[in-house]
């Protein structure tokens, strides 16, 4: 049984449909990267998994249990954490408080988890008492991922990890995500940056709310010029 199974999922905003009945599954312990142009439905997919966007029809099963239509609090508690597009840190709260809020559904913050997050991103420890809104974009991205990790998720969803980051910082973030995956957390990354492909066990390409490729990352890399074929 796969950790995450999605069957014929349809979802959208208001009356505007975005996902046109997609199906895919994600195996435990793997990193899945979702590619596609703006508007392809990548963010809607991870937002629907996290419960931020309501599913219209179809099923989302996590560890065999249906999670679609469940409140987001329950979804987080079941072991899914979302690092949303645009980071969305709490700007007027300190880095430490942002991280503590990441453990909201666990009701207590373990020192072990805080230390683990700080070990992924030592910069956060240096800035623990700084207001999150005063940090750079790269630091806020680190904080957003760190905050998501505070809930000890089994599945981490990251929407546009490299958006607005320099190439060097992007590689640092990708390496940390790879480490998080190596430590046992299953990861789904939404990306337009093909530089993440070497980290992908599974690759999914989306176009206009449908899946046009679902296979191993190496297969997608072998298809030639990925940017030209799938990303416009």
């Amino acid at each position: 049984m796969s950790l995450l199974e999605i069957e014929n999922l349809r979802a959208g905003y208001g009356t505007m449909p975005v996902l046109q009945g997609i199906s895919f599954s994600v195996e435990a312990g793997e990193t899945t990267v979702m590619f596609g142009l703006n508007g392809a439905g990548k963010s809607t997919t991870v937002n629907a998994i996290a419960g931020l966007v309501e599913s219209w029809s179809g099923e989302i099963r996590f560890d065999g249990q249906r999670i679609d239509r469940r409140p987001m609090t329950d979804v987080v508690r079941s072991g899914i954490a979302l690092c949303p597009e645009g980071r969305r840190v709490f700007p007027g709260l300190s880095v430490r408080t942002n991280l503590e809020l990441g453990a909201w559904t666990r009701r207590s913050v373990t020192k072990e988890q805080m230390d683990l997050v700080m070990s992924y991103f030592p910069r956060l420890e240096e800035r623990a008492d700084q207001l999150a809104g005063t940090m750079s974009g790269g630091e806020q991205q680190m904080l957003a991922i760190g905050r998501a990790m505070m809930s000890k998720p089994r599945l981490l969803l990251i929407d546009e990890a490299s958006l607005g980051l320099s190439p060097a910082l992007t590689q640092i973030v990708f390496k940390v995500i790879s480490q998080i995956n190596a430590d046992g957390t299953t990861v789904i990354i939404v990306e337009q940056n093909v530089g993440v492909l070497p980290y992908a066990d599974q690759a999914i390409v989306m176009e206009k709310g449908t899946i046009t490729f679902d296979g191993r990352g190496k297969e997608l890399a072998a298809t030639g010029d990925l940017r030209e074929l799938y990303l416009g």
Partner: protein
Amino acid sequence: MTTLATPFSAQVNLIQPIIDGLAHGAAYGLLGLGLVLIYKSNRIFNFAQGEFAGVGALMTYMIYTGYSFLPKLPFGLAAVAGLLAGILTALATERAVIRPLFHRPRVVLVVGTVGVTLLLIGVEGLVFPRGGALPTVDAVVGLDTPYLTKIDGVPLLYQNLLTLAVLAILAVGAFLFFRHTNTGTAILAVSQDSTAARVVGISIERISMITWGIAGLLGGIAGIILAVPPAGTVLPGAFTGTILTVAFSAAVLGGMTSLPGAFAGGLLMGLIEAFANADYSFIPGLSSLPSAQSEVAVAVVLLLVLLARPQGLLGREV
């Protein structure tokens, strides 16, 4: 050159305005705390805060006096009923007005609270068309005199001391609540980014209910403490008409997001008003006005502070 009509008197021009200013300022601060709480969580000016106080005071009065079919109960029980009324009114406001409009522009929510205010004033008028007043603390406890002592002949009223003490306790309590409790932190988180709060698993609906419940409790406390003679009254719309506007100014002066700021802003407003009323003849400009010296003084100070420090005295810009 202005000619002084009367010589300076420490009693009239210094001690009396200090005591009056602190008493009135505490009233502004009490309502200001509720305003800041809602602003911190929902980013709106809650015009209904004055009527949360009004409902609390009215319910306390009606039960304390056995109004109409209601049982006549001791003041303590009547006050508990008043606090519950304040809380329930705020919760109903949250459920019926705020939650359905939560994702609309903030101005829509503000107008919603104006509507709640008008509705509550109307209902209060239907239920209780005549005026009244709650007993002062010395009357409830059964003290011989209404004052603790006199300073240069000016009485230091127990009621004013109680108001100040309650304001200080609530301001510190609310500050600690936001600084040191999970729920307080969650309220701040929701106010800064409700989507991000959902992402970490915070129930927006639950936090909103808690926040408005606390605002109703603060309103109820303010109503019970402030609806006493000589200035206070239990009358439909009294709090909205007399205290709310100045309480808004106090909250803005203090820094709108700062609970200690609401405390400080309230006291400052009260002192400015009292000194302007007592000492306007010594102040060039104010002395030439036929009336409304205190309002002009408050407006000038408010504008000067906001020009120099737009985030208010204790507010913080992020």
